């Protein structure tokens, strides 16, 4: 490991010297790029992630001067991989640079992949608003390239996080759109009730009983088999409990559903919000009485 570190520093010094020298014949940037690449590789072997990242950024600068845009973008991606272990912000900025370069040279599918990677980094850092923004960009690019499956995956992430940020209308539109697309696909249509359940839960969070009723009617028109499912039954019963402002009935309905199909944490969080709102309303009524 010490040998790798010494070799890496040696290569880096040579590269810097090459850059600062006046080259009469041949390109100094090309030679410096080669040396920077070797240096970064040695830094990685020595597990010096910060230095490897900064060296890859210098490599990207050399490639940009040589007008080799694809190599520059690849160097930025390598830098992001190194920084991912130590510095998330640097990693994101490197991937951002790579995405910009891929957009310039027209490689939108690769740009979309790295936008998704940025979104996943923000997700792991629990920065939900930024994750939503980048997932949205990624979905747009995937749609431009007609990769609908990946676009829908990103859109579902956008819907999920938008609901957590209490932007329910946006989530509802996305889930309904995905449900419509899934209906036309014979392989995916059996998952439609899951999407409609998610959309229905977002409607419940808005707290408008008339809107919930209209949404349920719309879902029946969309998918005739939905009215016979337990998901529809759950949504209808919860809507009735909200209309009657009965917390006990609400809890009973959810408990029955949960005993057969355990709710995941996202649904639990949203339904808990509905219950808290209902409880607050009930307490208000008691005070008035």
């Amino acid at each position, binding site marked *: 490991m010490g040998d790798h570190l010494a070799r890496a520093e040696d290569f880096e010094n040579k590269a810097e010297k090459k850059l600062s020298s006046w080259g009469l014949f041949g390109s100094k940037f090309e030679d410096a790029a080669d040396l920077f690449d070797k240096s970064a590789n040695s830094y990685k072997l020595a597990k*010096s992630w910060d230095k490897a990242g900064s060296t890859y950024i210098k490599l990207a600068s050399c490639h940009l001067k040589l007008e080799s845009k694809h190599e520059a973008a690849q160097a930025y991606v390598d830098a992001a991989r190194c920084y991912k272990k130590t510095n998330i912000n640097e990693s994101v900025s490197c991937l951002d640079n790579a995405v910009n370069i891929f957009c310039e040279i027209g490689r939108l599918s690769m740009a979309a992949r790295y936008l998704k990677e940025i979104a996943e980094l923000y997700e792991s850092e629990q920065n939900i608003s930024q994750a939503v923004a980048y997932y949205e960009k990624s979905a747009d690019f995937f749609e431009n390239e007609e990769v609908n499956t990946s676009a829908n995956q990103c859109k579902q992430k956008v819907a999920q996080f938008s609901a957590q940020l209490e932007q329910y209308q946006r989530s509802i539109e996305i889930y309904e759109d995905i449900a419509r697309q899934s209906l036309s696909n014979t392989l995916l249509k059996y998952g439609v009730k*899951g999407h409609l359940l998610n959309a229905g839960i977002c409607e419940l969070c808005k707290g408008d009983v008339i809107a919930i009723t209209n949404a349920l009617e719309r879902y029946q028109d969309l998918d005739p088999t939905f009215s016979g499912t337990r998901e529809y039954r759950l949504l209808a019963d919860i809507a009735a409990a909200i209309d009657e402002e009965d917390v006990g009935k609400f809890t009973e309905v959810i408990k029955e559903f949960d005993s057969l199909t355990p709710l995941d944490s996202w649904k639990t969080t949203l339904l*808990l919000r509905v219950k808290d709102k209902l409880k607050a309303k009930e307490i208000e009524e008691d005070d008035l009485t």
Partner: protein
Amino acid sequence: MRDPNLELQESGWEELRKEARKIEGDLDVKLSSYAKLGARFTQGGSGSGYVDSGSPPIGSSRSWKSMEMEIQSLLEKLLDINDSMSRCAASAGPATSVTQKLARHRDILHEFTQEFRRIKGNINSMREHAELLSSVRDDITDFKTSGSMSPRMQLLRERAAIHGSISHIDDVISQAQATRAVLGSQRTLFTDVQGKVKVLGDKFPMIRSLLGSIRRRRSRDTLILSAVIAACTLFLIIYWLSK
């Protein structure tokens, strides 16, 4: 003059490192008990009966909250110590063992942070789940649940399992579709490459002659430049001699 300074830095480094190791040990113990607390909270939440479900969540919640804040403060302290060690290492000489130890400590801090975040997320979701399903009418609900028909429940449970399988199949299908799209784009790319290579092969003689022309032009430029430099130098020498 430098010896006391170096000794001072070394002692500071060793002291910081000792403290870092102590905090890492504390963090390890506390994370383990935190995870056990989460497991106990789950068992407490699923308990039946009004009295039993009443008191354990509150007690668990209180100790869970204090434990969480304790771990958070320990992580922040460890982060500060790592920063101090980093500054100490930077001011000292470039020693390889110091850099390795520093990287090791940073990795440990990263692992603990990830572990804490994961356990915290789990406990949060468990607590929300328990809170959603708990009610003052648990007795009535239990009574109604016990009164329902057994065969119907079994059928519904089986149907839920089938739905779960369908969800898993959907995930696999979406992965397969994504892979197919990527492979399609790769094939398009290779077709383009093949076309370009064929065109290049057709034009290979032209390229060869082009390269020859470039090489001759470059050598001619070099000769011209050399001649000009030689002429100027000769002129300077003659002028200097004549003056």
